[in-house]
Each structure stands twice: as structure tokens, then as C-alpha cells.
């Protein structure tokens, strides 16, 4: 096995192997391990960070869009409710107006009816009075003509009133 035989047989073997191993490995460590590796790792880290940032931004944008959608929906709901309220208010107002006007007209009509009734009753009572006096006169005339007795106008009136009013 030359790997072990040469250790003792060739006096240059160990020194040469050690020297070149240390030179080459130190070169690799300095140039590649310390020089290139951190740059490559930095590139990877930067990419990872960028991906994470982009993902976070996308998530934030998604959340913002959701919020916007929600607020839009709320706004829609609110405006719909407002429109409904306006419509029902208008309806209420119209109904109240109509009621008021109706009541006014009703009252006016009632007044007019009452006045007319009063007129009628006044006319009736005046007519009644007239009938009474005419009836009393006619009764007086009739009595005078039939019996020749002259009755006082007041007596005839009382008698007629008694007959008329039962």
C-alpha cells in the first residue's frame, strides 16, 4: 500500500503532501470559502428576502382589496337603506298630507252641513211658526165662521200649538 509505505520510504513524501495540501486548501478557503461563498449566499438571501417581501406585498394588496370590497358593499347597503328610508318617508308624508287634507275637507264639509242643517231647522221653525200663526188665524176664522164665536188670537194660537206639538 503506497499510501503507508511512502510515508516512511520517501522522505519527501509527507512534506510535499502537507505543503501542497495546505497551499491548495488555504487557497480554496480564502478564494472560494471566504470570497465567493458569501457573495453567492448574499444573492440567495436577497432573493429569499425579495420573494418574502413580494409575497407579503401581495398579501397586503389582497387584504386591501378585501377591505375595499367590504367597504363598497357596506356603502351599497347603506345607500340602499337610505333610498328605502327616503321612499318610505315620502310615502308617509304623502299619506299624512292626504289625511290632513281629507280631515280639512271633512271638517269643512261638516261645518257646511251643520250650517245647512241649522238653516234648514231655522227655516223649519220659522215655517212652523208661520204655520202656527196661519193655522191659528185659520182656526179663528173657521170657528168664527162656524159658530160665530170670536176667539182671542192667543187662545187660538195655544190650541193650534197643542194640536201641532201633540
Amino acid at each position, binding site marked *: 500500500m503506497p499510501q503507508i509505505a511512502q510515508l516512511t520510504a520517501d522522505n519527501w*513524501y509527507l512534506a*510535499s503532501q502537507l505543503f501542497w495540501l495546505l497551499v*491548495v*486548501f488555504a487557497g480554496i478557503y480564502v478564494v472560494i470559502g471566504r470570497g465567493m461563498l458569501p457573495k*453567492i449566499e448574499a*444573492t440567495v438571501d436577497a432573493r429569499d428576502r425579495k420573494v418574502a417581501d413580494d409575497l407579503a406585498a401581495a398579501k397586503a394588496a389582497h387584504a386591501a382589496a378585501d377591505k375595499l370590497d367590504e367597504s363598497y358593499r357596506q356603502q351599497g347597503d347603506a345607500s340602499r337603506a337610505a333610498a328605502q328610508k327616503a321612499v318610505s318617508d315620502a310615502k308617509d308624508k304623502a299619506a299624512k298630507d292626504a289625511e290632513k287634507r281629507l280631515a280639512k275637507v271633512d271638517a269643512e264639509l261638516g261645518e257646511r252641513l251643520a250650517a245647512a242643517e241649522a238653516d234648514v231647522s231655522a227655516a223649519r221653525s220659522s215655517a212652523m211658526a208661520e204655520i202656527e200663526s196661519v193655522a191659528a188665524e185659520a182656526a179663528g176664522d173657521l170657528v168664527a165662521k162656524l159658530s160665530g164665536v170670536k176667539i182671542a188670537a192667543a187662545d187660538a194660537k195655544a190650541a193650534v200649538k197643542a194640536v201641532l206639538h201633540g
Partner: protein
Amino acid sequence: MAAESGKIDPMHQFEVTPLGGGFNLGGHEVLFTNSALWMVIAAVVLGLFMWGGMRRQLVPGRWQAAVEGFTGFISNMMMANIGTEGRKYTPYVFSLFMFILFCNLLGMLPLGVLGLHPFTVTSHIAITGVLALLSFSIVLVVGFWRHGLHFFSLFVPHGTPLPMIPFIAVIEFISFMIRPFSLGLRLFVAMTAGHVLLKVLSGFVINGFNAENAVIGSVVSLLSFTLMIGISALELLVAGIQAYVFALLTSLYINDAVNLH
């Protein structure tokens, strides 16, 4: 691959041969070897691979996605095993993982077809042992730096009954001290065994075709070749798994030092 008098030596592939460029470092002769060459090749290929993933685009292309797959794999492992403090050690574990992985895979390249000799750097205990000792030293330094002498409480797991503490502590201490050996040996043995097996089978293929009885020889060759294809696929898997195991165990050991239970 040396065919000396018809025999194929499956261990020849592990031999480290000097390619020149020697100099003296503190009394030791240091040569540029085929092992060093393949370390450099692994480093260069790894550098090119990483460089292709440095375009830093927001939407990665195929290459960038592949590189980020590797870095993400190790970062996640460190995060899962150690926590946020694990990020500090990611450069080390990542370098370790990628270096071992590329050495393992490059050693599997069928360059012998072109007359080249691929060499698996991680099939040498001298290499894997040093890497394991490096990880072990980091664990020790971090552990004593962060916890001081309290780091020794690592050897006494929570809830150990008082009379058991001496025994448990000894066992825990031995298992702790064995870590660098098991870590280095595991990779070295897995790589060596796989390559020896492939080389032995390829020897069967060659010797089968050269056999005197052409019929039996061809059957042996074809069967061995079919087996080689399957085992090559398995070895690719082992190359990845061993690199992963080395990195995973290193991260777990560092976790012991950082979080202390």
C-alpha cells in the same frame, strides 16, 4: 496500470511520483508531485465551477442554480446542526466538502483511456488525516475559546448518574480522541477500496482477453466489464457520500464545540 510481465498492480495507481520543482522547506524536501497536480486541478475546476455561479442573477440560470444548490446544501446543513452561529463555519465546511468532492470525482475520471494517470488525492491517509486533524483542531480551539475548561463537561453527558461519571467520562474521552482517526480513515479507506476494486476488475477484463482460452476469457472479461460499470456508478455515489459524511461529521463536531450539548 503498470503491466509488469502480464500482472496488473492495483496499488500502483496510489503511488505519488515527483514531477519536479523541488525546494527545501525547513530541512524537508518539497516536490511537486502528481498528487499536488491533482489538488491544483481540483482547485482550478472548483474555482471555475464556482465562478460560473457568480452571475448573481435574481432568477438563476442552470449553472447558477447548481452552484447555489451546493452552497444552500451546506448552509442548510450548518443551520440545522449548529444554528445561526453555524454560518461562521460555513466557509470552512463548504471548502472542505467541495475540495473532497472534486478530488473524489476527478480521481474517477476515465483518463486512463487517453494515456493519462488520474490520481485520487483523497485516497491518501496523509491527506485525509491532515484534513481530519484540521477539523479536530478547529473543534478544540473553538471549544476551549468559547467555554474554557468548561469544555471538558463534554465528556459527561447530561443526566449521567454520579457513580457512572468516571466510566462514562473515560469512554467519552476515548470516543472524542478517536474522532480525527475515524474521520480521516473513513474517507481514505472508502476511496482506496473503491479504486482497488475497479482496478482489479479492469485487470480481469484485460487478462481475460489475453487468456489462452479465448471463450472463457471473453466471458470473464464481459462479466467483469459489466460489473465495472455498476461499480463505477456506485463509486460516484460513494464519492459524493464520503464528502458529505466528512462535512456532516465536521459540522456535528463543531456543534459540540459551539453549543456543548
